[in-house]
């Protein structure tokens, strides 16, 4: 077990930021912590990184393998990229390497990964936000830590920056690293993570494999001149899972991969004329909103 969180709680005044949170992350997991803003994601990461003291509860890194200060073996980017503005990117990385006691840090290699080669001599304060974010990822990667933690890694980036950061994260994930990532963007968690925990108001609502928690369903809205014939046809198609009748059309839930065009073709062969045919994916966003609204555990 890489990380075990045991009944962790933290409050700020009357706000319960994290409420009795228990989690465990295994080696090789790409673990997403998903929740709306203010759900306690950053507070949780702050506590397990020892910058915020918990009110109660405990956590354990690597089963205690690295003693009381395991953070040299964790690469983390929390909220904003934080560096000395008056130093160059390389000078900043040298400080990180010194703190981590890195023997022979591969500056070129990690700068290559985040696409900052050639800009390492520039002062940090001259960097664009996207570059700062990528430098933070580079510094997290320095000295090859066992676990990487990213808090909202694409926050505040433009679309190109988002694409670049995601690409970088996927590359890192493919190398078999354990990654812990907090995000309020469902799509991001779904694209990158293997496991997910959903937080709301500091409480854990659900945790498990991404596929089990966030299912990806699709359905088709369909209507024909003769609805009875249409229903008879739908009953014969094995990919159809359920049919719900509405006033102006039927909602047909299908197995993933079933094409609306196939339905159109079959109906035409049976002499059924369709007047309405729309293919829809059940929105993950709405499912996520549903989960956080219903408070299910």
């Amino acid at each position, binding site marked *: 077990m890489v990380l075990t969180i045991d009944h962790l709680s933290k409050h700020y005044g009357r706000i319960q930021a994290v409420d009795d949170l228990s989690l465990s992350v295994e080696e090789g997991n790409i673990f997403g912590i998903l929740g709306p803003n203010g759900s306690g994601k950053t507070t949780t990461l702050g506590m397990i990184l020892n910058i915020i003291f918990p009110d109660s509860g405990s956590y354990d890194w690597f089963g205690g393998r690295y003693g009381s*200060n395991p953070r*040299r073996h964790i690469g983390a980017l929390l909220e904003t990229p934080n560096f000395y503005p*008056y130093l160059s990117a390389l*000078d900043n990385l*040298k400080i990180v390497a010194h703190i981590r006691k890195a023997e022979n840090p591969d500056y070129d290699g990690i700068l290559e990964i985040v696409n900052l080669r050639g800009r390492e001599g520039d002062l940090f304060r001259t960097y664009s936000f996207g570059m700062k974010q990528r430098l933070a990822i580079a510094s997290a990667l320095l000295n090859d830590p066992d676990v990487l933690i990213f808090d909202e890694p694409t926050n505040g980036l433009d679309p190109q920056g988002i694409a670049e950061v995601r690409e970088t994260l996927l590359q890192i994930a493919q190398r078999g690293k354990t990654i812990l990532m907090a995000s309020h963007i469902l799509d991001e968690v779904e694209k990158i993570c293997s496991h997910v925990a959903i937080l709301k108001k500091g409480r854990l609502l659900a945790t498990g494999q991404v596929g089990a928690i966030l299912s990806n369903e699709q359905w088709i809205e369909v209507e024909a001149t003769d609805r009875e014939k249409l229903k008879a046809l739908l009953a014969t198609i094995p990919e159809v899972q359920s049919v719900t009748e509405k006033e102006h059309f039927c909602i047909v839930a299908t197995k993933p991969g079933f094409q609306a065009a196939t339905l159109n073709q079959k109906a035409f062969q049976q002499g059924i004329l369709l007047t309405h045919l729309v293919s829809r994916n059940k929105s993950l966003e709405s499912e996520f909103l549903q989960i956080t609204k219903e408070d299910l555990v």
Partner: protein
Amino acid sequence: MLYLLQLEWLKQRKHRPFLMLGALYILLLPSSLLIAKSIKEWPPPINTPDTFFRFPDVFIYLGYVGNWLTFFLLGFISVLFITQEFSSRTFRQNIITGLTRADMFWSKLYFLITVALGATVYYGLTAMALGIIHSDALYSSVILKHIDYLPRFFVMCLGYMSFGLLLGTWIRRSGFALFLFFAYGIFIEPVLRWGVHQNLFRHKSMNFYPMNAFEDLVPIPFSEMTKGFEKEFGFQFFLTGQEAMITSLVYIALFLVATYALITRRDL
């Protein structure tokens, strides 16, 4: 220890305010005293400007110039080199990266001691150079008469800087911390001592305030001129060297313990 000192050096070696304030100290320490040369006639007991530069009194005069300079320049550095870590959120990042809070405290303290040591060595060398140039005859007993000014100067630097470190750690915002540092040294403490303490109890205890103790380590020259007032008040206006030293060391210890407590117990 070397590891933590190296870490702080990596942070400061290209930090412009640190380099500029350091350069200013190196420049101003001898030149401020040398300004005295531009005035040819001095009232007794000085008479000629050369008095300032002769052994053994050059240690006293240069020390008093250094007193002001270290309060302003080293004080500034000591506030800034910790608030900088808060304003760019690098304190937090250093902990995340793997430093412990205690490491952070010690790296700051080691650096502070190194700067104080450097300032003292420079003071000693400058005093020696000025003395050798301006004294007609060199006797080791005369040269070394005020050699105790070296440890006093060092503790004074440490005192100003540990106070700055505490304020910077406590307040975190460089502007306000700097303001409070200078306001306390120049205005608040004198008002507390002369306005409040002296009126309530006219007692020697009014001298045992931190900035006053640090100041009296390397005191204003001609302190004997206040003897007349002292008779009237019934006690001395200045701490003796020993009193100043012990009082300063106690305050420095208190400031450092408080800084350590703040650094190790607060959320970042």
